[in-house]
C-alpha cells in the first residue's frame, strides 16, 4: 500500500515467507546440532498452537484459556499409539500391554486403547477429537451468547477438569507420569538424527501450511465477518448474520491446530503428561500469543517461538528468576504494547516509511480481554 514501490510491496510478503521457509528447511538442519534442532521443533509446535489462538482470540475475540486440552487430546492420541507400538515390539513384554497397565494389574487392553494400534486411527483422532470437542463446546456456548471473561473461565475450567480426569483415570492414562519413552514409529527408530530432522521438517511444513490456510481465512469474507463479530457482535445480528457458526468454526479450527501440534510434539519431545497441558501451560500458550501479537498470525507464531526459546535459555542459566522475568515481560507488553511485538514492528515500519494516514490505523484493543 505504499506509494513508492507497489510491485515490491506486493511481493515482499511472499518473498519473506519463502526465504524463511527455505532457511528453516535447508539451512537450519545443517547449522544446528540435533539436540538444538529437536528443541526448535518443540518450539515450533507451540507456534502452531499460537496460530490457532491468534485466529480464535485475535480475530474472533474468543479468549481461549484452555488450549492445553486440545493440544493434550492430539498428544495423547499419538502417545497411545506409540506406547502400543513399543509394547508390541518389546521382546520382554509378553502381554503386549503398556508397562504402566501391567503395574495396575490389567490383563487385557482396555477398549479405549484398542483402535490406537492403528497409526491412521491415532492420527485421525489427534486431528478430529479436538475439532469435535471444540465444535460441541463452541456451538452450545456461543448459541447461548456466552462470551468474554465467562468464556475464558469456562475454558480454563475445562483444562483443569481434563487434568483431573487424566490423573484420576491412571489405569487408562498413566496418571501424573503420563506416557513416555517412544523408541519407534512405524518401525523407524525415533532417536536417530535423521528421524529428528524428518520430524522437524514435518513440523515446519505443517506450520507453513496452517499459516497460509489461516491467512487466507482471515482475508476472506469469513475473516472479515469474524472481525466484525469480535468488534460488535450485536450489530452483526441485525445485518442478518448468525454469529454462532462463524465463532464455532474459528474455535474448532483453533482447537484442531492445537491437536495437530500435540500429535507432532509427542514423538519430538518423547513424553506427554498432565503437567504439560494443564491450566498453567494453557495460560502460557495465550501469553506467548499476547507477547507476539494476537492480531498477527506471524506475530503470534514468532511470539511462541521466542518465549519458549527464552524459557529454555533462561531456565538453563538462572532457573529461579525466569518465572518472574516472564511475568514482568507480560505486564510490560500489556501495558506498553497491547498489540505485542507485531504491533511494535508495524509502528516502527510506519515511522520509517511515510505512508498515507489511513494505512497507519491499527486495531486498538477494543475490550479488556486480557
Amino acid at each position: 500500500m505504499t506509494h513508492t514501490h507497489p510491485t515490491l510491496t506486493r511481493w515482499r510478503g511472499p518473498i519473506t515467507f519463502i526465504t524463511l521457509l527455505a532457511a528453516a528447511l535447508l539451512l537450519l538442519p545443517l547449522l544446528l546440532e540435533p539436540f538444538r534442532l529437536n528443541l526448535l521443533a518443540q518450539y515450533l509446535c507451540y507456534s502452531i498452537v499460537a496460530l490457532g489462538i491468534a485466529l480464535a482470540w485475535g480475530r474472533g475475540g474468543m479468549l481461549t484459556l484452555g488450549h492445553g486440552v486440545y493440544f493434550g487430546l492430539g498428544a495423547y492420541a499419538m502417545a497411545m499409539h506409540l506406547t502400543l507400538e513399543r509394547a508390541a515390539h518389546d521382546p520382554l513384554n509378553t502381554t503386549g500391554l503398556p508397562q504402566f497397565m501391567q503395574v495396575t494389574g490389567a490383563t487385557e487392553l482396555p477398549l479405549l486403547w484398542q483402535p490406537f494400534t492403528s497409526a491412521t486411527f491415532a492420527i485421525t483422532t489427534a486431528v478430529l477429537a479436538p475439532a469435535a470437542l471444540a465444535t460441541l463446546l463452541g456451538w452450545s456456548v456461543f448459541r447461548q451468547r456466552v462470551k468474554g471473561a465467562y468464556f475464558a473461565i469456562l475454558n480454563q475450567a475445562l483444562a483443569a477438569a481434563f487434568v483431573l480426569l487424566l490423573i484420576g483415570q491412571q489405569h487408562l492414562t498413566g496418571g501424573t507420569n503420563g506416557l513416555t519413552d517412544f523408541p519407534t514409529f512405524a518401525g523407524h527408530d525415533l532417536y536417530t538424527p535423521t528421524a529428528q530432522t524428518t520430524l522437524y521438517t514435518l513440523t515446519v511444513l505443517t506450520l507453513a501450511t496452517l499459516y497460509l490456510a489461516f491467512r487466507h481465512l482471515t482475508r476472506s469474507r469469513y475473516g472479515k465477518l469474524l472481525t466484525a463479530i469480535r468488534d460488535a457482535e450485536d450489530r452483526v445480528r441485525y445485518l442478518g448474520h448468525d454469529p454462532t457458526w462463524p465463532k464455532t468454526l474459528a474455535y474448532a479450527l483453533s482447537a484442531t491446530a492445537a491437536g495437530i501440534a500435540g500429535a507432532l510434539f509427542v514423538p519430538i519431545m518423547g513424553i506427554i503428561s498432565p503437567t504439560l497441558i494443564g491450566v498453567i501451560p494453557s495460560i502460557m500458550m495465550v501469553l506467548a500469543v499476547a507477547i507476539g501479537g494476537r492480531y498477527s498470525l506471524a506475530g503470534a507464531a514468532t511470539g511462541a517461538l521466542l518465549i519458549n526459546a527464552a524459557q529454555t535459555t533462561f531456565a538453563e542459566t538462572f532457573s529461579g528468576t525466569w518465572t518472574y522475568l516472564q511475568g514482568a515481560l507480560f505486564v510490560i507488553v500489556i501495558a506498553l504494547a497491547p498489540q505485542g511485538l507485531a504491533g511494535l514492528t508495524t509502528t516502527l515500519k510506519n515511522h520509517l516509511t511515510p505512508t498515507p494516514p489511513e494505512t497507519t490505523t491499527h486495531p486498538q484493543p477494543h475490550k479488556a480481554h486480557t
Partner: protein
Amino acid sequence: MSLLTITDLTVTFGDYTALDHINLTLTQGELRFLIGPNGAGKTTLIDTITGRTRPTHGHITYNNKPIHHLPEHRIARNGIGRTFQTSVVFEHLTVADNIDLATTHHLRPWQLLRAPRTLPDTVHHILDRVGLTPHTHHKAATLSHGQRQWLEIAMLLAARPQLLLLDEPVAGMNTDERTRTGQLLTEIATDHTIVVIEHDMDFLRRYARDITVLHEGRILTHGDLTTIQNHPEVQQVYLGHTPHQEHTP
C-alpha cells in the same frame, strides 16, 4: 398494503411498563416519524420489532407473518434493518468491507470462505448513493460522526431491507450533514418503508409528514406536524418535560 402490524404490544421490565398496549400499522412506502419525550418507549419499540427485546404481551406481524418470536438475525433476513442511537460500524474493516458484509448474509458458510478480488457492483452503487465513494478503502474508524451514520444507513441498504428503522439519524450532526441526511432519507423513502425516531424540531419541520407521538409507552396521537403541534395533550407533555428543547412557537 400493510407491511408491519403491531397489535396490543406490551413490554414490561419488572414493574416498569415500557410499552403499554401499542397498536400500530405501517403501510408499504410510508415514511413515519416517531417522537416523544425521553422514556416514551421509542427505542424499546424498535428493539421489540427487531428482536432485541421480547414482547410481554401482544404480537408483531411483518408481511402477514408473525416475527416477534424470531431471533434477531432471522428478523433482519426477513427484510427489517435498523440503526442504533450511537452508530455502530466495524471500525477495523474498510468502509467497503462494512457494506460488503451486509450484502452477504444470504451466502452459505463455504461461499464466505472465498476472498473476492474486486468489490461487487452493489457495494459501489451503495457507496455512491450515500456519498462515501472517496472513503471506499479507508478504515471505518477514520470516518467523521456524520459519515459513520451514513455508513450505517449504507449497510442497511446493502442488506436490501423493505423496512428501515432509524434511531436518531441526525443526532450530533451539523447543519450541512443534517441537510444531506434529510435528502438521503427522502431519496431512500422512494423505495423503502422507513420509521425515524427524531427529536430535532427543525428536521421534523423540513422532512416529516406523518408523525406518531409516543408518551409513557402509549401512542398519544398521530398526524402531520401542525396537527401534532396544536394537540393539547402533546403541548402539555412537552411543556411539562422539556419546554426549551422540544416546544416551538
